[in-house]
């Protein structure tokens, strides 16, 4: 049963992602991508990672994609302005499709050569308690460093996204 679910969800994820990368309208692409992330979250659950599955829905589908939607709404692009509409589209896709097929073929060949890759995944379940213990005991220093990284990202985003016309350093305005 779990095997069947895995293949169905994998097909849904690939189809939704393929729809997402070929949409002209960024809003449609984001919605398809949310769909793909839900399928991926269920695959994570099947692989025995319920905590990661929940965070995938909360952070990726919930926070990051909604941030994308907010930015798309904020930019208020005129409907006539579509960056992908101009230019010969098939000519643009052809080399990328060829290169992508070559890379995919090489990857599949490499997977065939690896003897360990043919083994079955064991049935496994990592409880959120074990997960939290590992995260905050063995990786405590890494968690601190990641918190610094998030702080720097927030400061950087604030600096880059200042309102127009405020050329003076931050804090110069009264």
């Amino acid at each position: 049963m779990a095997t069947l679910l895995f293949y169905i969800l994998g097909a849904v994820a690939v189809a939704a992602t393929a729809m997402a990368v070929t949409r002209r309208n960024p809003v449609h692409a984001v919605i398809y991508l949310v769909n793909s992330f839900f399928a991926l979250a269920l695959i994570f659950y099947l692989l025995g990672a319920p905590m990661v599955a929940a965070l995938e829905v909360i952070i990726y589908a919930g926070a990051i994609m909604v941030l994308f939607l907010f930015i798309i709404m904020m930019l208020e692009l005129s409907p006539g302005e579509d960056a992908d509409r101009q230019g010969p589209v098939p000519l643009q896709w052809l080399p990328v499709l060829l290169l992508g097929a070559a890379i995919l073929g090489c990857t599949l060949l490499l997977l065939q050569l690896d003897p360990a890759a043919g083994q079955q995944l064991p049935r496994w379940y990592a409880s959120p308690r074990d997960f939290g213990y590992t995260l905050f005991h063995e990786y405590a220093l890494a968690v601190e460093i990641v918190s610094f990284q998030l702080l720097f990202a927030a400061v950087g985003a604030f600096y880059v996204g200042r309102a127009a016309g405020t050329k003076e350093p931050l804090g110069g305005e009264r």
Partner: protein
Amino acid sequence: MIVPFQHLLILASILFLLGLMAVLVRRNLIMILIGVEIMLNASGLVLVGASAFWQQLDGQVMVIFLMALTSAEVSISLAMVVYLNRRKKTIDVRAFDELRG
């Protein structure tokens, strides 16, 4: 879970390549960032699969760090998109192909 590890790696590589194609082909800055998201998610799928394969939690912890990295990257790059749109009134990447000394 009665799936060969191979099939999971194949699924992840297909997703990664879709993201890579989005980055290479699209000219809309937002779509390029979406392609980067897809690629990061595919690598997260490999990490979770490896975590199940070896029955160690380290892969899942790496996914948490990957999510933190992604949110940092997205916040800065979307701020850049807003800045670039303010400067040139477009998010077409071809408008940003020259350096300003």
